[in-house]
């Protein structure tokens, strides 16, 4: 169960490492076969993905340029093309920009806290005794494995205004009286609680991946740096960090993508109807489509979200190509 035994083998080798012994030996052709065989094997997969992913993706784009409400859904009226009307409608709306800013701040907070906490815990795991390591790993895997909806429900209970354990415990501190304090009365406070929930769920993956990465850092390098008089911080900054960089870039990009897509946490926490000050891009798009019944504008918002993420996805893909996962 301990993380150090998890995966050392599979972690992408650091870029600075000496070239792996069997790197680009002429692989020759992989097994050659009929040229059609691979496509035949791929066919079912591509067919399914085309139907349930490709088609909706195209539809998402076309919807964004149409007028599509309740009457189009039931087929009473044809869906008319309206050009960029949906987009201008959204972009002119002050609320949309407030949502964008809130989403970016929220996601940035989640990513930063996740990565920093993940790194600190991974480093801590290297220092503690074996039994502490096992305990931490159990807690991490348990919180990682919790279904998001369950975790959200539990956090809702922890932060309950009247009977929540958090208010009760905090109120024991001198000078603090939080009994009956409603964490969700204000948007920023409520989103901070949701951020904590997201970070709590995301940290285990980061810790376990980084721990595996840390086992790959050559001890001799760190020792050499230390002998040369580098302090702990400098060893970390100039030896450990550069070696971990590919993993960190990957984890960060993944976190950005996940945290920009946070939905059930907000939705469940707010009982299915997030207040305006809790709206993130995802819930806002959902709201437009399924509450206001403007499917076209909802799609346009979703499309803008995807476009916003495209840059991050590009960084992730480049990293994957670079470390040779995709060769």
């Amino acid at each position, binding site marked *: 169960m301990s993380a150090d035994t*998890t995966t050392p083998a599979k972690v992408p080798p650091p870029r600075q490492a000496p070239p792996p012994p069997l790197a680009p030996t002429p692989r020759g052709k992989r097994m050659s076969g009929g040229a059609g065989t691979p496509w035949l094997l791929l066919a079912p997969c591509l067919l399914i993905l085309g139907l349930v992913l490709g088609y909706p993706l195209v539809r998402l784009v076309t919807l964004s340029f149409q007028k599509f409400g309740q009457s189009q859904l039931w087929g009473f009226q044809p869906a008319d093309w309206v050009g960029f009307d949906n987009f201008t409608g959204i972009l002119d709306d002050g609320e949309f920009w407030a949502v964008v800013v809130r989403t970016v701040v929220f996601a940035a907070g989640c990513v930063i806290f996740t990565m920093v906490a993940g790194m600190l815990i991974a480093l801590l795991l290297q220092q503690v005794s074996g039994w502490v390591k096992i305990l931490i790993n159990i807690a991490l895997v348990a919180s990682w494995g919790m279904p998001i909806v369950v975790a959200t429900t*539990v956090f809702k209970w922890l932060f309950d205004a009247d009977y929540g354990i958090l208010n009760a415990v905090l109120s024991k501190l001198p000078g603090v009286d939080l009994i009956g304090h409603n964490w969700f009365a204000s948007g920023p406070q409520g989103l901070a609680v949701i951020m904590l929930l997201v970070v709590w769920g995301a940290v285990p993956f980061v810790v376990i991946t980084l721990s595996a990465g840390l086992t790959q850092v050559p001890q001799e390098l760190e020792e050499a740096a230390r002998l040369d008089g580098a302090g702990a911080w400098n060893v970390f900054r100039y030896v450990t960090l550069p070696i971990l960089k590919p993993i960190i870039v990957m984890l960060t990009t993944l976190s950005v993508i996940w945290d920009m897509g946070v939905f*059930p946490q907000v939705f*469940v926490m707010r009982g299915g109807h997030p207040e305006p000050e809790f709206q993130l891009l995802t819930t806002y798009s959902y709201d437009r489509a399924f509450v206001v019944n403007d499917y076209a504008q909802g799609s346009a918002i979703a499309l803008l979200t995807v476009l916003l993420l495209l840059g991050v996805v590009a960084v992730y893909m480049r990293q994957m190509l670079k470390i040779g996962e995709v060769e």
Partner: protein
Amino acid sequence: MSTLTTPGQTPGVTPALRKSKAGWNVLGLLVFLTAGFPVYWMLNTAFKPAKDAIDPDPSLLPTGFTLSNFSRALDIADFWGPVGRSLIVSLAVVVIGIVVGMLAALAISRFAFRGRKVVIVGILAVQMIPLVAMIIPVFLLLNDLDQYDKLSGLIITYLTFILPFTVWTLRGFIVNIPKELEEAAMVDGCSRTSAFIRVVFPLLAPGMVATSVYAFIQAWNEYLYALMLLSQKNQTATVWLGNFTTKHGTEYAPMMAGSTMMAVPIVVLFLLVQRKMAAGLTAGAVKG
């Protein structure tokens, strides 16, 4: 922060080192308590009498033991119906995902062909589209296909995120099996198919099991599509948890009992495959 990398990991133990270790251990225990507390509190609330759950001065330690919250949770709304539906959906998704995913994974890991890289990059990129963004067109698609509020509709929808995951993870496991093994078998007269079945498949089995379990967990945990694409009468297990909150308030103790019933089997499954999966996850992760 800087202090975390202080030297002193060498096994040669001096008293000073042991002392510094104790400091780290205390810090480590704090991390353990913080990370584990939500899970502990869920279990604690689930097993304590409902009246203790709304004690204004709650005790952090367990107070009494009862299963009444569980029976209340089972009463509040049909439990086994949603669980059965979740099982059907998740199992169907896993079977289709593994079979179809295996074929595709073989194609991209054992064959050289034009467009291979495009397929790989495509499958990776597709994983990056937030599910939420797709809910509107998927809803309309199922509506058009007359699959709204049907388990079959949910099953094909889940394949959007399960299939790229299985393809990518299985690919990772296949790549780790040396090609030479198959080639040797083929030299010895096996056909390519039988070389695969006799040599590769047995080596792949553990990876396949882990992938299946993990895919099962993901399908089981999915919430948004289950909520949107099925009506109340067809709700799945994750959506079932919403039944504890009504306009009269929330029944927290039974809700924690319900959460426990939902979480424990999943966490146990997760514990079983976590080590095996961490490898695949580093490459093409999908949780979140």
